[in-house]
């Protein structure tokens, strides 16, 4: 079986999300990595070094610079003539592009897989992670998105795949990229961070959130996350949100500060290795999943902790 995967990148470097997809794809067959972008040969070189990738397909075209689904989906659909499965990470790009590919191949996509059970059977979360379904696909070709935290990352070095230029797709004339506002991160990125400090609604307002959460995150070298309640209340932007409707994370250590532990938040972080919760309500549901809990007023406890570590 030959498997085509979407390499997540920003035209300059490959994103870590790709590595989990390589691991999932390798369970199905021979892994071919598609690097579609503009001026992205450095990304192709990186992809070629990933252990488990046997071939890199490089599609260099100005129309692919921003991964517009209208332009890249026909390229992928064309390449699928010679592949049996297409796997993409369940990132903003992957979730945008994969279903467009699936429908153009008349395939029902399998979203956000957690495991590969066999060539046609996979597990995936439903109902915000409150249930795990095992599904079997009867489609001849498979189109799949992969939950990054569910698979071990492939080694980024050790491979020596060949790089082959491919073409197809191009400007479909339906859409244009206007611009992006990507926050400059001074801290690790949420989905790849080893430690995350998240704040909830109890943080009161944006200034207090910053004053309490940021110093602890910086002391621990952690990424900053938030519950949906904190995002809805405007303390931090939406891309900080951890939960079923936000980002799914599984760091080594997750510190939940002033987060009660709503179902939808737990769905986004319960696969973390160690969960630490600080909350003044000892009955908060977060303590039912926390490995280490501290019942305390966060406004006193967190600054004290920052001073003591």
């Amino acid at each position: 079986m030959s498997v085509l995967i979407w390499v997540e990148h920003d035209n300059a470097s490959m994103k870590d999300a790709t590595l989990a997809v390589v691991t999932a794809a390798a369970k199905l067959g021979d892994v071919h990595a598609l690097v579609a972008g503009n001026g992205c040969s450095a990304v192709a070189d990186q992809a070629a070094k990933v252990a488990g990738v046997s071939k890199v397909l490089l599609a260099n075209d100005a129309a692919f610079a921003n991964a517009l689904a209208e332009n890249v989906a026909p390229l992928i659909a064309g390449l699928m003539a010679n592949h049996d499965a297409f796997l993409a990470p369940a990132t903003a790009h992957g979730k945008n592009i994969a279903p467009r590919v699936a429908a153009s191949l008349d395939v029902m996509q399998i979203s956000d897989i957690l495991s590969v059970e066999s060539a046609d059977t996979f597990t995936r979360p439903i109902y915000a992670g409150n249930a795990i379904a095992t599904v079997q696909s009867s489609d001849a070709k498979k189109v799949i998105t992969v939950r990054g935290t569910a698979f071990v990352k492939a080694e980024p070095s050790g491979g020596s795949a060949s790089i082959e230029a491919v073409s197809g797709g191009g400007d479909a004339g339906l859409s244009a990229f206007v611009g992006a506002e990507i926050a400059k991160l001074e801290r690790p990125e949420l989905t790849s961070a080893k430690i995350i400090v998240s704040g909830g609604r109890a943080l009161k307002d944006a200034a207090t959130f910053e004053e309490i959460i940021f110093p602890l995150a910086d002391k621990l070298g952690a990424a900053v996350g938030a519950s949906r309640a904190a995002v809805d209340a405007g303390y931090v932007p939406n891309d900080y949100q951890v939960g079923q409707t936000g980002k799914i994370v599984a760091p080594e250590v997750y510190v939940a500060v002033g987060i009660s532990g709503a179902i939808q938040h737990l769905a986004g972080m319960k696969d973390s290795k160690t969960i630490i919760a600080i909350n003044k309500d000892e009955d908060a549901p977060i303590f039912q999943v926390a490995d280490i809990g501290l019942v305390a007023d966060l406004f006193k406890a967190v600054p004290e902790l920052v001073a003591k570590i």
Partner: protein
Amino acid sequence: MKILVPVKRVIDYNVKPRVKSDGSGVDLANVKMSMNPFDEIAIEEALRLREKGVATEVIAVSVGPEKAQETLRTALAMGADRAILVVAEDVEPLGVAKLLAKIMEEEAPGLVILGKQAIDDDSNQTGQMLAALTGRPQGTFASKVEVSGDSVNVTREVDGGSETVSLKTPAIITTDLRLNEPRYASLPNIMKAKSKPMAMKTPADYGVDVSPRLKTLKVVEPATRSAGIKVADVDALAAKLKEMGVTA
């Protein structure tokens, strides 16, 4: 311009789903059902565009069981002008997208606004699939929608921030949480919604085969975590962090 808004009847957002003991699925008997929250946002956005004079008519459509009439009545009570129900159970996103493509042919909307995903199957596919089947552009995970002439600018929630794309209409838009805050239906509007038109259809009316491609072999509860320990004070927590190697 018409706007088509597909909506789905799903388990209510506040209900904790229970997995059936025989592993065949999630128990939906006697469970409160509501409109998928992302679809409420889609309806709201369409209504705002009508109120701004951009759209002339908002058509709500659902593919689901007979009871999805209730969901469509909610859409009508919020302010949609009329509704179409395609009666069919457990149709996958690909089948729904095929039905919607046929309805797009008939209704010729300038925009189709959908929720980015349904909170039951969490597929996040229907909008993108509809865009593929109709050969139209897609603005997924929208946090802002601005129509001007025959194009629409959609600001999208992406990893690490947002990006804006310009799409030619007709276009397909899927909603993210921050796009708007949906209105509640007022009592007079709920009464008025009862007399708004609702067309009843079947997949056969559109000549669409909706037989499933995926077979659910089993559904289980996720692995649970058990509660750990509680520490007495900040000193004890700091000591734990040191023990774990998180701090020096």
